[in-house]
């Protein structure tokens, strides 16, 4: 990576913070993101309505503590599909003034964002905290498939099997980094594959 060079399309994540004026709060987290939720409740337990959707993971499970901290608003879910389906149904009944907070891997956060976008919630209207892993979702510019959880500089496309070079260019619409075939010129000739997004 070139020094002092910053790609504008790369998302910037922050620490979750309550929106003071929100009329209700919706927190969606996965795995290590549970810690971000706990930190949020350390700051304050807001008086407005709160819904927390949490999906524990083999790597991290904060369910037990969360049950104690958020006794009424918490819903535990097992898979990402379940989280997204629940999110969809919860969003249906919500009004302007609700603020959305997301914590987890980039893969997870952008899947959540995509559902929220469907409801007219724009990027600026949600807060995201990256936790646990730097693994990237990769969009194959050749076959248009998205490969999740890529931790290396070069990854195999789950759609077409091409070896993709993981670029820094991020598409908010697709919720993924761009992946370009690396051995197009000389098939089979690959540079070293290294883990750089642990």
């Amino acid at each position, binding site marked *: 990576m070139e020094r002092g060079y910053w790609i504008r399309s790369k998302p910037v994540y922050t620490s979750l913070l309550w929106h003071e004026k929100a009329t209700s709060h919706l927190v969606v987290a996965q795995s290590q993101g549970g810690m971000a939720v706990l930190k949020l409740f350390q700051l304050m337990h807001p008086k407005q309505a709160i819904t927390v959707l949490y999906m524990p993971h083999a790597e991290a499970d904060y369910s037990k503590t969360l049950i104690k901290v958020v006794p009424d608003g918490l819903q535990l879910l097992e898979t990402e599909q379940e989280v997204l389906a629940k999110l969809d149904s919860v*969003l249906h009944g919500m009004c302007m003034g609700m603020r959305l907070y997301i914590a987890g891997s980039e893969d997870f956060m952008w899947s959540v964002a995509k559902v929220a976008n469907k409801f007219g919630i*724009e990027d*600026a209207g949600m807060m995201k905290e990256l936790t646990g892993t730097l693994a990237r979702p990769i969009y194959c510019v050749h076959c248009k498939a998205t490969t999740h959880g890529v931790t290396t500089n070069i990854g195999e496309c789950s759609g077409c099997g091409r070896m993709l070079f993981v670029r820094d260019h991020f598409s908010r619409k697709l919720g993924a980094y761009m992946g370009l075939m690396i051995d197009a010129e000389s098939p089979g000739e690959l540079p070293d594959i290294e883990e750089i997004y642990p």
Partner: protein
Amino acid sequence: MSMIDIKVAAVEQVTPLVKHFTFVKQDGSPFPAFSGGSHVVVSMNVAGRVHRNPYSLMGSPVDTGSYHISVRKQEQSRGGSVFMHESVEVGTSLQITYPVNLFSLAKKAHKHILIAGGIGITPFMSQLVDLNRLNSSFELHYAFRSPEHGAFATQLKTICNDKLHCYADSKGERLDLTALLSKQPLGTHVYVCGPNPMVVAVIETARNLGWPENHIHSEQFLSPGIGEPFKIQLAKSNIEVHVPAEMSMLEAIEAAGVEADYLCRGGVCGRCEVNVLESDGALLHHDHFLTDAEKASGKKIMPCVSRARCDRLVLDL
């Protein structure tokens, strides 16, 4: 700035204070199409002095045969609106700028709440055409002094049907902003155009109800105030310009023959921003564009609405 030569094709008194003007091009050719919420700046020669006032285009954005504006006669104006009311008639020639949109509808919105006060209805007139064409979900809330001041209420009724909500102050009808903005579905955007207290009330209410900033839209062109006369030095042109009490700095600069950029002439777009190279007194910032920090730094000024109280003010123009 390139201008379009127009001639007035029709004038209609809509309310006791509002006149509606229809413009056609001098050469009979069609106007450029525009998007709902756009405005043009009308340039008029008032007793040897050029006035340039921004007005929203209120006709259908797809009708390129004519442009429509409405002008409210401002009792304490510096002459522009009075000129439009008293001296402009069918056949009058004027010049206008190309349309610019500083108040466009949010493309990703799922629902639009439009709030207008008095003459603030004008930018919405063209937006309504776009909303109806796209079959978008919307509500129009239109507040005015009394039924005779509700310009276009009948016309709006036919465009909006049950989506129109009118509030006549004289009949004690009030728009309850908190009730309106607290039960809107996700993805709603709110737009306001009207008198300052109304604009401030809508922005504050939406913020206090947790609406994200980018879902709140307002348009409020300021009119350049009348102030103390002062002098400015233009460094690049190497001239001194006198700014009289009833002229804005931008107008005085233009009158001196120096080209300066502008879009809104109302302190909101930022286009006219100039660097202040030197000053020995107070800059009187009246715009809605510069941040408080920028205003305090004394390094920038918006000449379309702001003034100064100093003996020496050097601008990078």
